[in-house]
């Protein structure tokens, strides 16, 4: 993948390197399949995904439910084993990582309701053989200040935002170079979200922590990330800088995501559903995964998977998997003056 980017990254190898990762769920056959001697219908959750995160970089993976974004987070953090492909941090496999933290959508996936925040952070330190004097500093780095006011509290005594800070404190205690954050703010009120975004940005600036920020929210991706990777049915459809992907989107799917986004800005008002139906629940269609919802699909889109290639923008690192990308009208006209979207009847 991205030869251009690897050349441009001065230090050579990226901090996180994902190559050709594939995961299939549900390969067991039903009794009916067995009687009919049919193969089982496995659902491909990730299909040959490449991804890089450089030191100190914030990369957003955006996708709808069913895109495979959470599977990707779980593969990278070692919670799910990929069938094929490589995941490396600083050139090491998952068993040798000391420098990867995790933050999930629901703080209770990480926090034990019966343990104090001090005990929670200590547990991680102990597991890694790190000194216990880091507890207070970690809590304060996650803006739970003063640490003495939080150390002895249990999760129930905290607000949702504070619980997510506690999870981040647990990650920070281990001195991470990279934090995988899966929808870290989507359960929070909007004012709490802004506080956590500010914290993530500050930790990157001051401690050089890289983040893989997984979200369904394009606006969050736009605001927080250097680069954006658009995932759909387990594959990358578009990637590039936040400016490239979200200000000058090439893929019809990225454009549909953006056009569907409501805005409080009167200049951008009016949402449109440019794509028909919903993300399929079962197997991806042949050829381009997006073709059965795409307004621009032609016959060729059904016959082969479009490869991820340089986008028509020509900008370094901007890549798109669409046979028709070069023929489509400029993105700005799509995002701003889309005709009243045709509401597709029914779903997928």
């Amino acid at each position, binding site marked *: 993948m991205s030869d251009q980017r690897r050349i441009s990254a001065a230090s050579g190898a990226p901090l996180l390197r994902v190559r050709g990762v594939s995961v299939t769920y549900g390969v067991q056959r039903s009794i009916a399949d067995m009687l009919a001697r049919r193969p089982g219908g496995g659902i491909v959750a990730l299909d040959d995904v490449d991804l890089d995160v450089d030191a100190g970089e914030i990369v957003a993976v955006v996708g709808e439910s069913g895109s495979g974004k959470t599977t990707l987070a779980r593969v990278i953090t070692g919670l799910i084993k990929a069938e094929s492909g490589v995941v490396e941090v600083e050139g090491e496999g998952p068993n040798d990582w000391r420098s990867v933290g995790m933050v999930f959508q629901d703080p209770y996936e990480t926090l034990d309701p019966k343990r104090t925040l001090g005990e929670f952070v200590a547990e991680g330190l102990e597991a890694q053989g790190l000194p216990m004097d880091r507890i207070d500093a970690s809590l304060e780095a996650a803006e739970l200040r003063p640490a003495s006011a939080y150390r002895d509290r249990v999760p129930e005594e905290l607000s949702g935002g504070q619980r997510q800070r506690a999870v981040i404190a647990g990650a920070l205690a281990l001195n991470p170079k990279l934090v995988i954050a899966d929808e870290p703010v989507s359960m929070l009120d909007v004012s709490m979200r802004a506080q956590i975004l500010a914290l993530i940005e500050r930790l990157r600036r001051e401690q050089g922590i890289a983040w893989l920020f997984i979200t369904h929210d394009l606006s969050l991706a736009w605001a927080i990330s250097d680069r954006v990777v658009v995932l759909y049915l387990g594959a990358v459809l578009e990637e590039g800088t936040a400016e490239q992907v979200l200000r000058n989107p090439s893929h019809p799917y990225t454009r549909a995501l953006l056009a569907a986004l409501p*805005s*409080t800005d009167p200049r951008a008002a009016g949402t449109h*559903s*440019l794509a028909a139906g*919903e993300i399929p629940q079962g197997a991806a269609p042949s050829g381009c995964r997006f073709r059965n919802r795409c307004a621009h699909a032609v016959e060729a889109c059904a016959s082969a998977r479009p490869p991820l290639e340089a986008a028509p923008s020509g900008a370094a690192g901007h890549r798109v998997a669409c046979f028709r990308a070069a023929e489509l009208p400029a993105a700005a006209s799509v995002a701003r003056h889309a005709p009243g979207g045709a509401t597709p009847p*029914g779903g*997928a």
Partner: protein
Amino acid sequence: MSGAANHNDARSLPAGANAAAPLLEIRDLRVSFSLEDGRRLTAVDGINLSVSPGEAIGIAGESGSGKSTAASAIMGLLPLNGRIDSGSIRYRGLDLVAEGAPLRRTRWREIAVVFQGSLVALNPVIKVRDQVAEAIELRLGEPANAAREKAKRLLADVGIPDKRLEAYPHQLSGGQRQRAMLAVALSCSPAVLIGDEPTTALDVIVQAQILELLDRMRHEYGLGLILITHDLAVIADMCDRVAIMYGGRIVESGSVREVFTNPRHPYTQALLGAAPDARAGRRTIKVLEGQPPDLASLPPGCHFAPRCPLADARCTEEDPPTVSYEDRVTLACHRYEPNGGALPAPVAAPYPVLELGKR
């Protein structure tokens, strides 16, 4: 749709209602809950709101703002420990709060609701078409065959294809379930539709599809729409007027254009500025410190004062009165003088501004 044109003509109003009275009018509504420890918590603290046919009103706020409680009160669906302490909810002049009010008659038939989690609102063991048909049979007393025909038409109208009519709710996608919920809500031809976070659980493209559908239904059926959401952008997209709630009170209300272009209340400014906006290309966000209010221990005076950069001593002592300006905007904020009713210039609250994306 053919049924839409005569939708309102065919309406027979419940006894005591008056076709000339406003569609829905809420005055000084107060709702409280009893807590296990015996205390009472005021969730809705004297709100005023009205909706006309064909009009869409947005109610926005974060957790603890009271926006969903207000919806439950209007629907007569408050939990057992909740009660309406005072105020009125009038449907075409008929007070739904007064003793002996025909709530069973108005609920669903005059005022219907679509909730966020349609999987819990739909019965999991009944096919979609039967659920809509049952609602029609039960609430309108129509014969089974006619109800099933009507259900089929309604489901087609909300975009459920014929081949999905016999599906169970779990066999439908999230968007299809929300469409089916909308069919159930519209089955008795209500005049008012309340959407309580109706698209919050949906992906953004499906959300746009459902919002387009809601907008079409509102115009075709002349519905008064009340849209309750934490997402101001959805309100900007869908509504004519907006009410911003904080700690059980409406702190600012007015036309969407006026309130979103010239937000005056410091909380409205924070809420509008707190979310980045990929559509508009805005990365700067205003950071509102502190926590949403705890309704069980609200501060005296203005509930927002502890988080407000403009607050002074008066704000922490006296409740700010709600002042109406030029019939366009209402504000509950000590920073704005009554001004003889003339709309005041906005005062910018100095929130810390975070410039994301500056590398």
